């Protein structure tokens, strides 16, 4: 962690009102300590076989971290996947796109899921659908790490780029050309969106994000879950 610049997120002003599509300056990368992420990685590194499902574009730092853990990483490039989800015309089409975006080998089911901030960019009903699909692919009792925008009324309109910084922090390259309203979802509300998961730990970060460790409640069927009726729109 030497030399790391630890400071507030540039988009955690708090006092500003939500102004979607407001132009904002491009910011330099910032580093944020993530205590729960550190615990998760520590447990994963000290345990047995670890399979990580990572919802972030591949990065040198991420691969280096997981290389030290001798684990397997299934990579979902979420910004690309989000663009695909937005083109879904029906609920069935959305599910098909979700399944196509997530690499899956039944012999290697993920027991750690790194969501970073991607849940912030999905409507509540779509969060349920995406994470239900993820649950079907994961090992029983898999753990999931997520960052939810909470205290700040706005956040970058596009997902940020997250790269692990050592084992206890993350470097964030915000894309703040445009801002949008943040979901500000409370833990209870998130739990309602994710009936297959329970919240293990939650911690408020100084950046205004809430850091979550969630856990799959049990074994899920590998078969795709039923698709809800109606059209799901990814905002």
């Amino acid at each position: 962690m030497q030399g790391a610049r630890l400071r507030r997120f540039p988009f955690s002003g708090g006092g500003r009102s939500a102004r979607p599509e407001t132009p904002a300056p491009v910011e330099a990368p910032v580093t944020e300590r993530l205590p729960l992420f550190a615990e998760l990685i520590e447990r994963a590194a000290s345990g047995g076989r670890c399979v990580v499902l990572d919802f972030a574009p591949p990065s040198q730092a991420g691969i280096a971290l997981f290389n030290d853990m001798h684990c397997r990483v299934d990579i979902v490039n979420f910004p690309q996947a989000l663009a695909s989800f937005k083109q879904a015309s029906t609920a069935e089409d959305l599910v098909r796109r979700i399944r196509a975006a997530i690499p899956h080998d039944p012999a290697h089911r993920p027991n750690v899921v790194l969501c970073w901030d991607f849940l912030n960019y999905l409507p509540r009903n779509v969060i349920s659908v995406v994470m239900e699909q993820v649950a079907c692919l994961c090992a029983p009792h898999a753990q999931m790490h997520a960052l939810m925008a909470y205290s700040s009324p706005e956040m970058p309109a596009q997902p940020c780029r997250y790269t692990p910084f050592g084992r206890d922090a993350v470097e964030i390259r915000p894309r703040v050309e445009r801002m949008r309203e943040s979901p500000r979802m409370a833990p209870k509300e998130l739990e309602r969106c994710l009936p297959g998961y329970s919240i293990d730990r939650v911690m408020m970060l100084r950046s205004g994000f809430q850091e979550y460790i969630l856990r799959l409640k049990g074994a899920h069927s590998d078969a795709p879950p039923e698709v809800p009726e109606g059209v799901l729109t990814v905002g």
Partner: protein
Amino acid sequence: MSAENNQAANNPYPQPSQTAMRRDGASIGPKTHIKGDLHAEEDLLIEGKITGMVVLKSNQLAVGSQGRIVGTAFANVVVVDGTIEGDIYAAERIAIKKSARIQGAVMAPRVSLEDGAHLRGSVEMDPDAIKEAVQAKFGDLLQPSRPEVKPSSPVAAVPPRPVAVERKDEAVKDAAGDKDASGKTESNAASK
């Protein structure tokens, strides 16, 4: 497919590859498309397209910035600047450069990846899982060659020539009459 062949005649490469390669390795030029499996026992630089499996038992495979493999690749070390649509296995390490585009599984005990590289799939870095996967996929191909089938000549494409022996039948004597004293000629070989 040797390096000498590729260096010949009017510089077939528009731009030299940035991929680090040993100078004595073989290479496949950007205007070459090979359909079928490729096995080599020397370092190989691919700037062309291979549709099929590429297996280098104990050498380095480099996929240059213009190179493309549609299929599975195995080598001791793999360096990717170009495109691979398929799984990549390496006994030692895989280096993925920022210009690389990979769709498939990447399996090696050591993996390095430059920011900006496109990777859609999985990265397996567990040595035990890699060993198991390599054995399942390439077990037969990676068995050591039996001594009796090893060619004595460095040119693998030419079958080993028969040992010259003195024959007493007239036909052989006549055939060898206007050849060199060693008797190591194609006609002599054909008569065997």
